[in-house]
């Protein structure tokens, strides 16, 4: 099974399956977290995009993923929302810089560990320069919990016949380390090969897997030595650790709640402006104002009846006027940190 969509792409593009003997079958694995993003999160992004003076940027594949009732960010764009497809998070920052009149540019950051370091760089840049009006919905996913859940869901006979294997490779491996996959061998006793993306890489990796299976071994092997080192990209790892933290739990479409499976922006990057006084932020549109308390509680606390037990209003979006202390009020960073 190849875990990464990049491998599935190489396998299909070069017809690798047709080159394999009939007793060898490839199972296309789960790929990246875009398609398993729960519809509620997407709907929240659509709602946000439809607010005035918001530019929502994201990668192209996310724009087509359906939210509630089949609505997508692309359909929202057709209705007039300012949704932009970007190639890179740096493009989103450029857009925010080019539109200082807009109150917030939002970047929907989704992806595996590969996509997280670029988002971390962008967060650092947004923080270090005063021009960016940027917000980020950070939903990035960690490979291991999904890997495990996927594994447990396989019928027992499939576990026997299709070792969880070939190659969660470069996209996820390049910034993270080869050691991150050791659990597959150690806990599940299955061979795993970190594979490159050229067709010969994939074939070579399949051969390495078969050799391990025939020898009755279960090790993590690295075929992609020209790009993946055992330690991984330390700089990217440091940056990720600085900007993001692990969520205790996150719900995925079709997979349910998975502990430690997603990242969120760290408070120092997410909540920069919360420490700033409210009156300094006159241009905050309604969506990013703190949610008001329920009316019955807004009245005097003495009038609270026993029947009044308002649920706490979830603070979906926290707004952060980060730069208004030093710069013009319109220049601030708005960050969507814990997003529900």
């Amino acid at each position, binding site marked *: 099974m190849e875990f990464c969509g990049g491998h599935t792409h190489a396998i299909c593009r070069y017809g690798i399956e047709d080159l394999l003997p009939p007793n060898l079958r490839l199972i296309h694995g789960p790929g990246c977290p875009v398609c398993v993003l729960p519809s509620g999160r997407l709907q929240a992004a659509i709602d946000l995009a439809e607010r005035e003076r918001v530019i929502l940027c994201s990668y192209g594949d996310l724009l087509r993923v359906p939210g509630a009732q089949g609505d997508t960010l692309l359909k929202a764009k057709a209705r007039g929302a300012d949704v932009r497809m970007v190639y890179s998070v*740096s*493009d989103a920052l450029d857009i925010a810089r080019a539109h200082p009149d807009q109150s917030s540019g939002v970047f929907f950051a989704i*992806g595996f560990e590969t996509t997280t370091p*670029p988002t971390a760089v962008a967060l650092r840049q947004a923080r270090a320069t005063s021009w960016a009006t940027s917000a980020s919905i950070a939903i990035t996913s960690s490979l291991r919990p999904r890997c495990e859940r996927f594994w447990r869901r396989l019928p027992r006979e499939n576990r026997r016949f299709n070792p969880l294997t070939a190659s969660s490779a470069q996209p996820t491996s390049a910034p993270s380390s080869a050691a991150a996959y050791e659990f597959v061998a150690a806990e599940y006793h299955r061979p795993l090969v970190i594979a490159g993306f050229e067709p010969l890489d994939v074939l*070579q990796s399949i051969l390495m897997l078969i050799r391990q299976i025939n020898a009755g071994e279960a090790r993590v092997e690295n075929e992609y*030595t*020209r790009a993946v080192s055992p330690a991984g*990209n330390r700089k990217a790892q440091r940056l990720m650790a600085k900007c993001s933290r692990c969520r205790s739990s996150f719900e995925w479409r079709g997979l349910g709640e998975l502990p430690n499976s997603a990242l969120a922006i760290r408070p120092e990057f997410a909540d920069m402006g919360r420490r700033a006084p409210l009156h300094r932020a006159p241009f905050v549109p309604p969506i990013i104002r703190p949610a008001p308390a329920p009316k019955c509680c807004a009245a005097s606390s003495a009038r609270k009846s026993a029947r009044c037990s308002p649920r706490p209003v979830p603070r979906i979006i926290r707004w952060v006027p980060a730069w208004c202390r030093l710069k013009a009020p319109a220049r601030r960073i708005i960050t969507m940190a814990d997003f529900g």
Partner: protein
Amino acid sequence: MCLAIPTQVVEIIDEEHAVVDMGGVRKTISTALLDGRSAVGDYVIVHVGYALNRLDPEEAAETLRLFAEFAAATKPPELRP
């Protein structure tokens, strides 16, 4: 989105930016995630506009050598008339 492609650096712009060539398409990318300075001629893996890793030329040559060995070992028998 999950495609990370090897590209070659053709121009250095500043400490954190470089121009790469992807099969004839030139694109400015960020090299902020790489350790050390990049040089023209380096091969880097680019994902969403950011270079994630620098390819090790020696390891790449070793992989190519393995591929050649693999091809030689699996050469189909020559057809005889």
